[in-house]
Structure formats: structure tokens, C-alpha cells
């Protein structure tokens, strides 16, 4: 397990996979708008953010 596993998730994401994708792309989840139920960040949200990074 990467040491990053210990970092608390402050942002609500739909799944641990989403957190991992964000981490692998150096994406700050706090900057990603969530479109899931109740603002949850979904897989599509991070994928979109990776394609065109938020300014």
C-alpha cells in the first residue's frame, strides 16, 4: 500500500477508485466539482477534470 492510503479523504467521492485516479493524476479533489448525488464526485467528474484541468 502506498503511504498515501493513510491520508484522510476530506472530499466526498463516490468510490476509492475515484480517489486513486485523482492521486495518480496529481489532481486536487477539492478543486473538482461533483455532479453525483449531493455533490459527490463521480468517476466522470475526475475524468473530465483530468481531460481539461480546472483553471
Amino acid at each position, binding site marked *: *500500500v502506498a503511504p498515501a492510503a*493513510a*491520508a484522510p*479523504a476530506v472530499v466526498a467521492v463516490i468510490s476509492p477508485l475515484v*480517489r486513486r485516479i485523482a492521486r495518480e493524476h496529481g489532481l486536487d479533489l477539492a478543486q473538482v466539482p461533483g455532479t453525483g448525488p449531493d455533490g459527490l464526485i463521480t468517476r466522470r467528474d475526475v475524468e473530465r477534470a483530468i481531460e481539461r484541468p480546472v483553471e
Partner: protein
Amino acid sequence: MANDASTVFDVVILGGGSGGYAAALRGAQLGLSVALIEKGELGGTCLHRGCIPTKALLHAAEVADETREAADFGVLATFQGIDIKGVHKYKDDVVAGLYKGLQGLVASRKVTFIQGEGRLSSQTSVDVNGQRIEGRHIVLATGSVPRSIPGLDIDGDRIISSDHALKLDYIPKSAIILGGGVIGCEFASVWKSFGVDVTIVEGLPHLVPLEDENSSKLLERAFRKRGIKFELKSRFSGVEYTAEGVRVSTENGKSIEADVLLVAIGRGPVSTGLGYEEQGVAMDRGYVLVDEYLRTNVPTISAVGDLVPTLQLAHVGFAEGILVAERIAGLKVVPIDYDGIPRVTYSNPEVASVGLTEAKAVEQYGKEKVVTLKYNLAGNGKSKILKTAGEIKLVQVKDGAVVGVHMVGARMGEQVGEAQLIYNWEALPAEVAQLIHAHPSQSEALGEAHLALAGKPLHAHD
């Protein structure tokens, strides 16, 4: 792919067990030309002398136990004994069916299968049946065989290995099992269900000593209840033949008699005399040394499975074989996280785990960073229905991911699939807890454990 003298294969694989055939199947799928050399039967230890036949015996044992205890469920039945011939027929049919399937698979993927005993003859060739098979890459996958220790000669009659135990055409009255690891505990479980008086002799302080101590203790409790005897911290010192059987003595002065002695103290790599050292392959005590991409020190040679010093499990062999094939085919590969490999002991009760034991987690993260939680299966409806006892223990990095899942109980081996996703995907307890599991099921226990760890136990006391 024709196998004439001029052919140079992309990959030549020595050994057709789990590791070797997985590499062959995946390689062929990726368009590589593959030769697979096997001296015995395709499928190797796992299919013919390991995973599959033992699990068939364990299921026959389960049927025996359920039949014996049928009245507890309102089913009227008389258990009359084990028909060992019938057991073998059932087991052999299972093996034969899977063997046929595997042969068909290898044929359909156009792998060149060569029957014969091979020997590494250069860094890019294997000699077999007097022929030289050339390959741009060589994969060593010759596996392992039962190990013994000096002073302990496996005679195949009263002193046997798992190979013999799987073919025993009678049921001994009593048996001593040397070694309380996975294989020892599985045979102890089968034999006890078959009516054998079983004693396990283990040098370490616990059965299944690689598991979290909690799992070992739960298994020991269950075995004690089932009447399986065991001597822990008892190192083997000698064995002698008695009139009818054997007498085993231990360094701490115990002396135990039984009809047979099963030696289950581990398995050693198959590598002597196969030309590995001559071709410059770096080795250690018979194991072939590899890096995290399963490469040996010789650029053209890889090695996988029980032959390399990683966990000796069939699915580790699969994973390693696939990784090597993909690497050779030029795909991007990711090293295997061996802690993320699921481990199951298929005894009654089953022991299953993935990730770190508490002890390892403490070592890795420090005591104050490690949180654990135990969920007792007594609160789980389905487990109650199965009349099984056990626990799930979770190991978590404080405020972080679940890094260890340890389970004991009937059928809990099947829960390791879910546990494996939780560990490998680095899930937080709350992310699992959020998903309410099917009621009533044993998977629900995994859900409840995560609910509890997330601070919101449902069917458990706070």
C-alpha cells in the same frame, strides 16, 4: 505453430503448472508464439496434486459433517461412513473435467505443447526429448515438490507427503500431521471429518502461523472443539516405526503414535539439475531470484510460481505468469502487491485474509496509527443459519484505509473476493459502510464490520 528445428519461439516456458500455463495462455492471446514444455500433466501441482483435489476432499468432508449433523437441521439421515473409493472417484472426476477444459484451452490458443522433461541448455533454449527448443525469451516455471528434513524419510507408506495423502486408498485410524500451515490444517480437517484421530505437530506457537494471530487462535479454538489435537511450539526430533504405525517424538519431550505421519512442513523449488545455475541464473537455496517484474539476472530469462520465493499459491502463479507474458509482449505492467493477494485455508472453519496482519501493520505504520475492529459472526444471521462461529477482524490505518481483513468461519473464504477489492482499492471504512449488504448473507458481516469501524455499527453493540 509448427515445432520444427528452425522455429524460434517468442517464449519457451518450462513447466506447465499454474504459473507456466497462465504465461502460455496470456502470451498466445497477445500474439506471441509459445512453446510449453511439461514432463507430467498440464495443470501441474495445483490441478493434480494441490488446490483442486484437496478442495474436493474438503467438500466431501463437509458433506460428511452435514450428513452426520443433519438431525440438527431437522433432516433424518444416518451417516454410515466414508466410501473412500467413491471419494476418490468424485475427486478424480472433478480433476479430469478441469484437466480436459485446460487442455482444450491450451489447444485452442495455439500454444505448442511439448510433453517431456526439459533442461535449460542456453540462455535462449531448452532441450527436451533430444531436441533443442529455441526462444527469444525463456520462462522458468518448474514449481515445487513436498519438502522433508534430514532424518525424516518419506516412504510413501507410513510416512507420507500430500502427494500420497491425496491417493490414500484407505482411511487411517489415526494420523500425525507434521506442520500446522495451510496444507497441514486442510488435511487435518478432512481426516477428522472422515473419522481419523488427528494430531498436528507444529514448531511455531500457532496454527496457520502466517495469519493474524487472532485468526490462528480462532482456528485453534474451532479445531479443539472438533477434537483435532495439536501440539504447538513442538519441534520434531525424530520418528520411528512401531509394529503398526509410527511414533513421532518432539524436542520438548512429547511422543505421539499413529498409523501414519503426514509431512506437511513446506514445499521446495524444483531446480536441481535443470541447468539453471550453469546458464548463470542467480539462485538462493534452490529458488530462482527475480525482481518485481519476475526477471532473473539473465535478460532473456524470467521465472514464476513456486520456483521463485514469493507466496506459494496458484493464483500468485497465475498473476506472475500473466505479468511476464504481458511484459514480453510489450504491454505496460504493474508489479504485484503481494500483500494484496487473497489467502484462504479451506479447512472447517475456513481462514481467509488479505492485506496486513495487525503485527505487520504496527511494524509498518507504528502502533498509534493502527486501529483494529472485530466483528463476531454470532451477530450474523446467515452464519447462525450455518451454525458456524468465527470473526472478522479489520486492520485500519487511523483515519485512513483498511489495510487488513482477516476472517474465520465456514465459507468465509468466499468473502475474500470482496475483501480483496477493499484492500487493493484502498477503501475507507465509511465507503464500504455506505453500501448496505444483502440480508441475510455472510457478506453482510463484512458490511457490518465496516459499519462498526466507521463508527456506526448496526447489528453490533457500540
